[in-house]
């Protein structure tokens, strides 16, 4: 006697009907004719909405490494003749299992760039990234700290946490291309099988085209994983990567690949802090008479955020000196996307071992959309003529992080 479960399995497995070739073709002809007819009678759809992507920092572009090519693209459609079906889910599933990626890339100036990434299989995001460019630039990024090493300038810049990643995750590149690039931009991609002359083998090609860009992702039919990414044409050639020529997965990470020792004789600066000549200016900052530095740090941060919320820019600039272009960026982008509405909390200041400028205090801001954002400000303490004055040197990490 069959159990209910057995019956379910029987129906799932054995109840199948298939169309004959004649029926298949008969219906398909009508279906395609109906589509053509509908196209003729309906107005043309609106043109593609080309999204401009603001990438403020070329360093960040390099950090985004392999995935940046996809980020820089807004895609619209190319419709070729009937292509053999390829279930792109196979690639998304294969990518969900990868733990490391090792890629050899070329930037827009023709420099070779080697990238290692430790991928979080659950989220698809990078746990850590190593990136070394022939141009003399290297990035070692971990959840604790990121080092930007400019060998030509002999400078190492330090920043808190992982380098800001692109919103296209390598481990979820297909999903993110579709959800975050194609859909918002009326884009499309075409998937085809082509013969790759270099590899002397057939590959799956995911081809994206727009009026301004064109790119290809080559996928290995066996492993289902991307093996190269190439920007064919772009209106945004920049300091990012032009192509990823070879990609290897799940290779053993070289020992200490994400550990960085600052070379001797190299200037070390905090990535988002102002230099001493700016911070030592007696006309900036604030004299605060309190019993403790901790209390004074909290006061200057509180004063700063009140000035920003009230759009008292002259006061804000005095408390936090920065070049005018940095202020322009904050005022027109950061403080627009995350418009501060209320200062919620300032936590007790602490000393960070990698930040020698002064104490750091975390703040929590409520933005006008009701979200809570947090960041860490570095305070420089200056003592002159028995008076103590304080100035905001910059941030340790990003200005706004979503509070989880």
């Amino acid at each position, binding site marked *: *006697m*069959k*159990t*209910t479960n*057995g*019956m*379910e*399995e*029987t*129906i*799932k*497995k*054995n*109840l*199948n*009907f*298939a*169309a*004959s070739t*004649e*029926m*298949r073709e008969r*219906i*398909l002809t*009508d*279906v*395609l004719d*109906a*589509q*053509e*007819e*509908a*196209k003729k009678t*309906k107005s043309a*759809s609106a043109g593609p909405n080309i999204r401009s992507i603001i990438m403020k920092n070329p360093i960040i572009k390099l950090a985004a490494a392999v995935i940046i090519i996809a980020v820089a693209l807004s895609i619209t*459609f190319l*419709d*070729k*003749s*009937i*292509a053999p*079906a390829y*279930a*792109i*889910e196979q690639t*998304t599933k294969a990518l969900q299992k990868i733990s490391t990626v090792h890629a050899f890339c070329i930037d827009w100036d023709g420099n070779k760039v080697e990238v290692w990434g430790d991928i979080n299989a659950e989220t698809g995001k990078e746990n850590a990234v190593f990136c070394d460019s022939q141009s003399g630039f290297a990035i070692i990024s971990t959840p604790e700290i990121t080092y930007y090493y400019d060998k030509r300038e002999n400078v190492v810049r330090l920043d808190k946490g992982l380098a800001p990643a692109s919103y296209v995750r390598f481990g979820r590149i*297909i*999903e993110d291309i*579709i*959800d975050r690039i*194609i*859909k918002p931009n*009326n884009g*499309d*991609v*075409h998937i085809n099988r082509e013969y790759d002359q270099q590899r002397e083998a057939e590959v799956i090609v995911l081809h994206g085209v727009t009026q301004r860009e064109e790119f290809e992702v080559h996928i290995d039919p066996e492993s289902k994983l991307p093996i190269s990414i190439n920007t064919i044409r772009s209106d945004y050639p920049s300091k990012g990567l032009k192509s990823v020529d070879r990609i290897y997965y799940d290779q053993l990470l070289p020992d200490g690949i994400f550990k960085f020792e600052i070379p001797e004789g190299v200037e070390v600066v905090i990535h988002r802090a102002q230099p001493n000549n700016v911070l030592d200016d007696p006309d900036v900052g604030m004299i605060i008479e309190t019993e403790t530095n901790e209390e004074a740090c909290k006061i200057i941060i509180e004063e700063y955020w009140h000035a920003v919320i009230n759009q008292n820019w002259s006061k804000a600039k005095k408390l936090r000196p920065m070049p005018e272009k940095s202020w322009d960026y904050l005022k027109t982008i950061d403080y627009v996307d995350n418009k501060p509405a209320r200062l919620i909390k300032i936590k007790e200041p602490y000393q960070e071992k990698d930040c020698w400028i002064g104490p750091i205090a975390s703040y929590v801001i409520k933005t006008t959309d009701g979200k809570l954002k947090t960041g860490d400000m570095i305070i420089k303490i200056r003592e002159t003529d028995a008076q103590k004055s304080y100035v905001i040197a910059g941030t340790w990490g990003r200005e706004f992080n979503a509070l989880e």
Partner: protein
Amino acid sequence: MIEDELLKWRFKCGSREALSRIYEKYLNNLLTLAMALLNDAGAAEDVVHDVFVSFAKSAENFKLRGSLKSYLATCVINRARDRIRTNQRQPTKQDKIDLISSEANEPDRSVISSEKSQRLNHAIAQLPGLQREVIILRLKGQMKFKEIARLQGVSVSTIQGRYRYGLNKLRSLLDGEVEK
């Protein structure tokens, strides 16, 4: 279903290729649904034909957040219901079972199936219409009970009841006939 998301988008953009791919991907599945609901090869072909033609015409206004498979399955259900209602108003006609076995090797027939599949389908045809719908949508349309409940306009527990009763009846009808 990333591929479906891509196909939906491209279809909306007017891609002939995307429509062909959707058709190839779901034709047999929809045909199986239609056959299970109508137990008539000619009627099933008509329903599937109408669903795809209507779908092809809908590109410009096509807005679908959910599963493409569930959407097409729902279209088949609605068309099959219309068909059943129309037939009920007309004089009863002999079930023209146009099913054939793949082993029968008769190329002029439009729907191909195994003998096991035909037996199952005959048993399913004996179930009350709503039970039949629930079982087919759940097991061949891979729809959730919640979605089927919305489609039939009843609670989820009612749907689960119809599913259970339907399976029990099928089990007694088929006991010993169809091997897993």
